[in-house]
């Protein structure tokens, strides 16, 4: 049994990771600005299986206190930092309030959780694995995602590599995942405005990702299966980042769903 902190765990990718981990017997503590009543599945598990702290990740003191407290109950092994917001204004349109709010949550919020968890792991001499959440917009240009989101998600990449290099000596690994468009509440307005098929046609997969599909990659990075991978930005994007010139009409939706293709899962992660 391992203990993983999941920031932004009350919805979207964070929630998908939290539920998968809890169901396979690990302890998860969710940090989210929402209250725990926002989680439908909460009642299925005991407080020993899943903890919930309602807090704002931009508040460094609150995060530090929370991480110290929750590791006293059960020592920590890692984290997924998925608290994030999206703002869409281009440089000349985005208000400075929106820009600084995006940087506060996506960058400072991630720094706060990563710092508190790494400090805790180093102090307790425990090895661990962290996964941050970047984006296609952290690796390149994505139309419609605006300046604040691009800057913050690229900064998450820099944070991840810096920590990977400096804390490897403590047995700490850290990688980022870089999802394309995922069917989460955060992407809802984008999907409604631009159309699911149009967004999906940008990538070879020809469909949008389910949160569960992102969660499986995050889980692999948290597990010992990936013990020699660190400082990597893992795109989970249906191939979007591999393509700089898509076919004229985009990629069609496929007849074969990749969730039913290839080999079966290598099994429960140890």
């Amino acid at each position, binding site marked *: 049994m*391992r203990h*993983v902190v999941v920031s932004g765990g009350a919805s979207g990718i964070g929630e998908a990771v939290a539920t998968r*981990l809890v169901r*396979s017997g*690990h302890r998860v503590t969710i940090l989210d600005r929402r209250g725990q009543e926002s989680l439908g599945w909460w009642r299925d598990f005991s407080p020993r299986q899943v903890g919930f702290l309602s807090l704002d990740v931009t508040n460094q003191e609150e995060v530090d206190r929370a991480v110290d407290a929750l590791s006293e109950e059960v020592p920590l*092994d*890692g984290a997924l930092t998925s608290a994030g917001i999206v703002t869409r204004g281009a440089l000349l349109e985005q208000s400075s309030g929106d820009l600084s709010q995006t940087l506060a949550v996506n960058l400072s919020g991630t720094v706060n959780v990563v710092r508190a968890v790494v400090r805790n792991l180093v102090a307790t*001499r425990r*090895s661990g*694995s962290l996964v941050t959440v970047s984006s296609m917009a952290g690796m390149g240009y994505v139309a419609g995602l605006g300046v604040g989101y691009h800057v913050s998600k690229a900064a998450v990449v820099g944070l991840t590599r810096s920590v*990977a*290099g400096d804390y*490897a*000596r*403590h*047995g*700490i*690994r850290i990688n980022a995942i870089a999802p*394309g468009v995922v069917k989460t509440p955060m992407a809802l307005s984008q999907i409604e405005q631009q159309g699911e098929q149009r967004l999906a046609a940008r990538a*070879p*997969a020809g469909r949008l990702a389910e949160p569960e*599909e992102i969660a*499986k*990659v995050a*889980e*692999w990075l*948290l*597990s*010992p*299966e*990936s*013990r*020699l*991978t*660190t*400082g*990597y930005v*893992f*795109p*989970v994007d*249906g*191939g979007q980042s*591999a*393509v700089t010139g*898509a076919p004229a009409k985009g*990629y069609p939706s*496929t*007849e*074969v*769903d*990749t*969730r039913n*293709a*290839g*080999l*079966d*899962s*290598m099994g429960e*992660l*140890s």
Partner: protein
Amino acid sequence: MKRVLVTGGASGIGAGTAEYLAHHGNQVSIIDRVDSSAAPWWHALPSESRADWIVADAQNRVAYVEALKSVASGGIDGLVTSAGISIKESFLDSTDDAWDQTIGVNLMGTVLAAREVARAMVAAGVGGSIVTLASTVGSSAVATLGSHYHASKGAIVAFTKSLASELGPYGIRANAVAPGLVKTPLTQFMRETLGEDVLTERVPLRSMAQPIDVARAIGFLLSADASMVTGQVVPIDAGQLMVMGQPLDGFAEVSVDAESIAIL
């Protein structure tokens, strides 16, 4: 039972991967220029996990394609192209022969295998997953490994992205793994000339991979757990690829048990 072909499965990463996949409930076929079908590890596998072992060399294209067709025609869900060679020559002294051999085995061997297998997957209409063997040398220079080896691995990276794009509509995913230094026969020369300490000081996690480490990443990419992953190059490199300037005295020893650098 899912069917998977591993080229270059007689040794190194290929053998480690074949063994790993067989132990995880898959039926494995091997094509290699070497016949190690008498090896104990192959015989130790459950008999239903062992399909064909065909001896064929990628440099003999007619025979190689024939071997690929015979495996693929039985139905196939996954492919791992790990047949690869590295020839020790400096660029200035490099010979046309070494270039032809390296590109012939590493790049063309990968291309031929992917083409036959993808054709069979498309014909069957079931989708599938392909994993090619790139390397840290596919995107950056690593001293003592030949320029032909670098060129072949770089080509495999671009080829794999193109595969992902063309085969995506058929439900076929294509990804590469990029191992750093792995304890295999291919890296023996490098490990002996430079010494293992010098090599591990370059990487943040201070470790050298075993074939099983690469096999685990390949298994993940082949499986439906990676259903949204295609066109990617996944490093198993102890952090080597992200480093643009290592500490002057190398990376420090890892102070906790390196085997436990992982959770869950």
